């Protein structure tokens, strides 16, 4: 079994849907805001489930499911606004959706029709990163840029921004992540290091990556750490809001450990039955991030069937759009790839491209193939 959360654990909504208070962190959203979080989590889960189904049907080569991590992602992304920057790993589908990335664009890399095909500048959602932990340093560098661009510590909070970087519990073992703590602390960079501790790095439990509660890892680097219930969207939002404000003010970096669970496999290539117990999965199912919000709202008469029905219809629509969009994705043209290697394609590379085209043409040109 995975470790139970320690006492330093920010929770504002219990798995049973009961609202509780925390001495430091409070959620200031109204019922509309909670319903909005519920809606985003439901849509994110539907998108993820649809993508998994598409992989099973052979429409995607691979999918890395975000099932179970909706609260951590929706809650943290909810507090982002321009000029904040988000730097995801490869499982942050709900973050990307929250920042306006088109879900069909997100499928392209998993279908193998493109590299990363969305506008990371316009969405402020940067490229997915597949090499574990590398993106943490990029986010710190972006935060250093924001310092130099005068986006930190301005009198009007609206003028300020910060970066948030997403990574997993496995990534915390990588040297790059430790180095990101060092750089962030030394330069007081406006960055939030947001770790979704989903308890598993493929088959390896968190105990192999950290023998102390993970949120304490950063303290020795000079970065304060907070552990939040990653399945509690209200708590995640409250803690992330606090950390982002802190960064934007110029008070430096924060490490957030969102304590959550990877409900699915690592990716569609993985088989978790080989290394973890069903009972553990079940215990986390009882801490589902979506269900507790439903219970909470229902209990307050703030969620009616009409809302739920509309949401179900919206989710169906999203799934249909994703299915159709995926099927319609154009095949890439190999010759186009040569254009994106250098700013100016060197002559020898242009020659390779021409050679490729001539070779391909030789199959259709009767004179050559004769």
């Amino acid at each position, binding site marked *: 079994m995975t470790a139970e959360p320690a006492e330093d654990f920010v929770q504002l909504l219990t798995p049973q849907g009961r609202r509780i208070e925390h001495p430091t962190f409070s959620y200031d959203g109204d019922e509309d805001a909670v319903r909005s979080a519920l809606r985003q989590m439901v849509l994110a889960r539907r998108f993820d489930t649809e993508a998994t189904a598409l992989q099973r049907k052979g429409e995607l080569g691979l999918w890395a499911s975000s099932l179970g991590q909706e609260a951590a992602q929706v809650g943290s992304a909810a507090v982002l606004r321009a000029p904040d920057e988000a730097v995801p790993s490869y499982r942050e589908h709900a973050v990307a959706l929250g920042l306006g990335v088109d879900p069909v664009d997100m499928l392209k890399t998993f279908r193998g029709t493109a590299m990363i095909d969305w506008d990371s500048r316009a969405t402020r959602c940067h490229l997915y990163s597949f090499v574990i932990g590398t993106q943490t340093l990029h986010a710190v560098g972006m935060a250093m840029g924001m310092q130099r661009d005068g986006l930190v510590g301005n009198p009007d909070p609206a003028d300020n921004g910060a970066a948030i970087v997403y990574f997993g519990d496995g990534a915390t073992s990588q040297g790059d992540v430790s180095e990101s703590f060092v750089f962030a602390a030394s330069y007081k960079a406006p960055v939030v290091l947001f770790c979704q501790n989903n308890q598993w790095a*493929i088959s390896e439990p968190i105990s192999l990556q950290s023998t102390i509660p993970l949120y304490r890892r950063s303290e020795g680097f000079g970065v304060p750490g907070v552990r939040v219930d990653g399945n509690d969207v209200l708590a995640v939002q409250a803690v992330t809001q606090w950390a982002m404000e802190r960064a934007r003010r110029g008070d430096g970096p924060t490490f957030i450990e969102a304590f959550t669970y990877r409900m699915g496999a690592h990716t569609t290539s993985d088989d978790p039955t080989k290394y973890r117990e069903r009972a553990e999965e079940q215990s986390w199912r009882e801490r589902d991030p979506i269900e507790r919000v439903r219970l909470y709202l229902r209990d307050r008469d703030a969620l009616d069937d009409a809302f739920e029905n509309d949401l179900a219809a919206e989710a169906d629509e999203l799934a249909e759009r994703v299915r159709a969009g995926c099927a319609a994705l154009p095949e890439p043209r190999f010759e186009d790839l040569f254009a994106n290697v250098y700013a100016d394609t060197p002559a020898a590379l242009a020659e390779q491209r021409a050679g490729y085209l001539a070779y391909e043409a*030789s199959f259709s040109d009767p004179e050559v193939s004769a």
Partner: protein
Amino acid sequence: MSTTMTMAKALNAGLRRALEADPKVLLAGEDIGKLGGVFRITEGLLADFGPDRVVDSPLAESGIVGTAIGLALRGYRPVVEIQFDGFVWPAFDQITSQLSRLRFRSMGRLSVPVVVRIPCGGGIGAIEHHSESPEAYFAHTPGLTVVSPSNPLDAYWMIQQAIASDDPVIFLEPKRRYHEKGVVDTELEPLPLHQARVVKTGEDATLLTYGPLVRTCLEAAAVAQDEGRDLEVIDLRSLSPLDDAAIIESVQRTGRAIVVHEASRSGGLGAEVAARIQERCFYHLESPVLRVTGYDIPYPPAKVEAKFLPDLDRVLDAVDRAMAA
């Protein structure tokens, strides 16, 4: 005893035999224990040899190789698994500036017999960083040896020879061939680790290749045979050191050479092989040495990877050009 098995099983059997033969052999890597590795190469070994000898590593490649160096300095023979080719780079510093040169730095006093196993190459429809061919970086580094089996028999023997070697070995496993079967004789006297193998003899031209494309070149040679061309196919097996004698003997005889690899062209193994051929076989050559390789672009999206990877047609196209010259 001869058994038909896949390359994945052959590697598993070779590792098992090495673990049985030498108590100092140990395995380490991400997910290699309970899961048996993402390609199941170490399946069952944790159960049989225990967690001191089959070690699940934290998710940190530099740490995996760096600690393997320390273990080797204490007399162990660590065999580490890097999960995918594209994830070896965090360990690049440990491999190229430490592992490769501890013998040299210690004036010959120390050996670090570490084997770094890396599933390599493309052709499996993967996402980014899972289809790389990093061999040239390592073959360029003095002090490292670099080998790549192309079939189950070699996989079974070469992994054991690599483990027995007193030098560090970068052991490149062509992942798209993991599930292809071949006969493995577990009793024969294996070819020396750094010797190439002539897998098909021929008189008209020599195809020089390794790893995943040995099979491709054999298929090309079979088609060429039907067209009346007799190609020799050499499986280099060892990329550092290269088996110069085998290369030279063949090319001096055929007068034509084509080097075939998946990795990008510029600065690749093909360039090194071609240079050696022109140094040693210049007056025997009937045509320029040609290369059939990946293009000088990062590995492409899966839907078009077949355009990047040398295939039978591209090899035969090069044969046509060599023979026309």
